């Protein structure tokens, strides 16, 4: 009976590694595209032109124009910059803050642990997207406010994970040995504990990139995130949806870009998690 698990463990690990590498390459490609966005866009994404509103894709405008005559292709590319870089940025920041909080909670326990974990409980006592919508709405729109709104709950995942890992490691003999040899708490936390838990945390961070992108796009779609005329895929879809019958490319171009990008990052997250499972990192 042949099934996937009949591949020898070594071969499977090789296969998983190759998968991870391929998707890392794709993801890096996307990141490079977003960084170079201004140079890659065929036209100025913000120039409006009432003469060429909603025209179909052509040589000069590869994805056509939107209702204000702006080049959709350029806006999609610039939108990549907004979506991808801010998603990665938010994940990175919440990962850092959450992990540090979690390590402190797990290591010291006591009052710090209580306060931070109660705070996390309070924030999680509420469906995350709803809270983000409420917060973003109250703070007013804009990309930064949207990121703050999403970030308010995002750090809790890493904090809880880091805390539980730290708690299970801190009683290990090698930590006691480090303490006895006079290491400061800071050294123990960052030189001894962190390297052991960072693997699992990073795996979780990777799987969160796709979700974060969807969150940012969602808030922008509702008008609570990136405000036009800045280009962002979610807000582009929102702007264009009333014209979907007239000019479907205005919705399809950002939609396809968004779905493909999210798929790549999701695949990346999955492959990293599969490899980590097999390598015993998690």
């Amino acid at each position, binding site marked *: 009976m042949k099934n996937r698990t009949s591949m020898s463990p070594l071969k499977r690990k090789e296969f998983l590694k190759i998968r991870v590498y391929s998707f890392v390459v794709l993801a890096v490609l996307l990141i490079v595209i977003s960084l170079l966005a201004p140079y890659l866009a065929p036209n100025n994404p913000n120039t409006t032109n009432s003469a060429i509103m909603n025209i179909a894709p052509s040589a000069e405008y590869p994805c056509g124009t939107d209702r204000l005559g702006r080049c959709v292709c350029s806006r999609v590319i610039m939108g990549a910059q907004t979506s991808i870089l801010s998603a990665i940025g938010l994940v990175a920041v919440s990962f850092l803050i959450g992990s540090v909080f979690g390590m402190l909670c797990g290591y010291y326990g006591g009052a710090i642990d209580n306060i931070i974990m109660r705070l996390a409980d309070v924030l999680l006592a509420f469906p995350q997207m709803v809270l983000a919508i*409420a917060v973003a709405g109250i*703070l007013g729109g804009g990309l930064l406010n949207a990121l703050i709104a999403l970030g308010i709950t995002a750090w809790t995942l890493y904090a809880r994970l880091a805390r539980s890992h730290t708690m299970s490691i801190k009683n290990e003999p090698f930590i006691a040995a480090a303490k006895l040899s006079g290491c400061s708490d800071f050294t123990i936390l960052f030189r001894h504990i962190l390297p052991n838990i960072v693997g699992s945390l990073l795996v979780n961070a990777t799987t969160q990139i796709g979700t974060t992108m969807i969150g940012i796009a969602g808030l922008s779609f509702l008008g609570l995130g990136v405000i036009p005329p800045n280009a962002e895929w979610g807000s582009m879809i929102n702007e264009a949806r009333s014209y979907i019958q007239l000019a479907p490319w205005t919705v399809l171009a950002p939609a396809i870009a968004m779905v493909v990008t999210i798929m790549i990052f999701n695949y990346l997250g999955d492959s990293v998690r599969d490899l980590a499972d097999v390598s015993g990192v998690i």
Partner: protein
Amino acid sequence: MQLIPILLALSFLVFLLMYISPGDPAVKKLTAQGIAVSQEVLEAEREKMGLNQPFFVRYGNWLAGVLQGDFGLSYADDMPVLPKLIKGMRYTLILATSSLALALAVSIPLGIITAVRSNSLLDHVVRMLTFAGNAMPNFLISVLLMYFFCIRVNLFPVIAKGTVQGLLLPTLALSIPMCSRFIRQIRAEVLEQLGKDYVTGLRTRGVREHYILFHNVLHNSLSAILTIVGLSVGTLMGGSVVIETIFRWPGIGKLVMDSITARDYSVIQGFVLIMAVIYVVINLLTDISYRALDPRIELE
């Protein structure tokens, strides 16, 4: 119970956020009601809304009111907040129930079939579809559904007025992302159960395959399925805000979006409180049902 302090803290946080955020609610209210904003009218309105009082007084007053069931008056139309919330809740509950029911009706059979026939053609096709489904935000699915069924084909009304016909598309829009998540997770759980020793034990005793699948594997998978569903409630509530707004389904999500735009803080505060209560209650119910399914678990 930890519920009370959490609710207090949450309401305080939201109150605080609204206090420090830009925009004058009095101005918004007057403009929403179509009243011209002059200095005296504004001052009078601010006085009436109690906006000139210090922060803690305002918070205390509001809290006292809530404990007596009075959630204050909506800034948009001076109507009491609580009945508005409850009416919206009814519609959202209908939408949530129908989409959850549809999602489970599709995901559980598909999850089981793809697990039992793992690596078959059907399995691969389903997994591709669920992967695509996971990568599509719910607002995109809604927009596409609307395009195909309302505009292209004109089967359903664009504005869902709370009728059964209007329920269909929002339900689909909410169910599709849920199905994508559920199928993957149910498949993983059933596969794990099928690999366990007791399944081999059952087979060596000659127990029939459908007994093994439905009375044993499914039974043991139920608590995992319950977890999956419980975890999705939060996303369900969040998703419904977006979908209700797009399809204009008169639920509590649409209400809160409108209130955010109108800076109607009374409604927003009440909404936060009610949502938190519901969310915590649902989590509690999920915990309780675990015990019934797996007698090894003790309630804390």
